């Protein structure tokens, strides 16, 4: 039985080698409101025509990891099949009063806060089951947040590929150079997930780094 299983596995490896198709499970990480779900929507819609999750200006809109399998990206002459995990925003603190500042009622804010804590735990659990990460940072914000430092450190410790996405380049205050200065050891692609600016550069980088 194990011989048959081994032959099947070898056959799958040969098929992949002949057709040059690679597969990777990548997680989209970052602090709340960095544009992770906007980016996930953009990638999945560009290559499979499906929308994955809702977006909002209120932090922690995504409170459950959203997984989309089998997204095939063709860029720069190579092809890669991605299983994309759009994770909830990582944070070290969650205060329901912050949501009330966005106009949510107290009960709704408390429910959102509880779900957000569960979402952070889920995002952390996913770190153990990925082949690489797209770390999305808001180019208008200080890149030295502890969430960014911790995610970068974990990827380095696990020796997994990491691609930093400097998002929101369409905004006047965007300063992706600060991100480059903060994490010079990692590749960075500057984009606007909302408008699609430079998105082809990101696909080339994805094919190169995760392929």
């Amino acid at each position, binding site marked *: 039985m194990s011989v048959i299983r081994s032959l099947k596995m070898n056959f799958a490896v040969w098929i992949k080698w002949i057709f040059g198709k690679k597969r990777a499970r990548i997680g989209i990480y970052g602090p709340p409101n960095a544009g992770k779900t906007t980016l996930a929507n953009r990638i999945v819609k560009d290559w499979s025509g499906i929308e994955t999750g809702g977006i909002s200006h209120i932090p922690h809109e995504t409170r459950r990891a959203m997984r989309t399998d089998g997204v095939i990206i063709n860029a720069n002459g190579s092809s890669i099949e991605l299983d994309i995990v759009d994770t909830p925003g*990582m*944070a*070290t*603190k*969650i*205060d*329901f009063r912050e949501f009330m500042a966005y106009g949510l009622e107290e009960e709704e804010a*408390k429910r959102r*806060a*509880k779900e957000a*804590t*569960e979402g*952070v*735990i889920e995002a*952390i659990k996913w*770190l153990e089951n990925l082949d690489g990460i797209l770390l999305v940072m808001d180019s208008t914000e*200080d890149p*030295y947040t*502890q969430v960014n*430092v*911790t995610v*970068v*450190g*974990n990827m*380095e*410790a696990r020796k997994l590929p990491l691609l930093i996405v400097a998002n929101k380049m369409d905004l006047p205050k965007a300063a992706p150079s600060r991100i480059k*200065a*903060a*994490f010079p050891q990692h590749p960075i692609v500057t984009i606007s997930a909302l408008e699609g600016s430079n998105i082809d550069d990101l696909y080339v980088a994805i094919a190169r780094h995760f392929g």
Partner: protein
Amino acid sequence: MDLISAERLESMSSMEKIRLILSKVKRGNIVVLEMGLTPEEEVKLIEMTMTEIRLDEFSGIEIESYPVKNESTFLNKILGKSGIKTRMTVIGPANQLRTIEKDKYQISTKVSVGD
């Protein structure tokens, strides 16, 4: 404010460090670690913090450190040591410790007393 020496941290397991930090921070203390946490310990601390959040009592932590230095040498590789050098870290209750500014060379924080 509690300053915890590198010697003490070296003698503790990851879970002991996280438990110690969280118990102090939940009591309202600011904790300064002479030798910080590894990336794996940091992410575990965040995970444990999420489980400890209580709506009107504890909203989480503020933690600030610099990226770890990777000083792996040939000898470390042979001995199976990681070569990761952790950095000084400050941790406090989110409602009392607030980061004003952080750059490559300096972390400026504001501490509120008697919240």
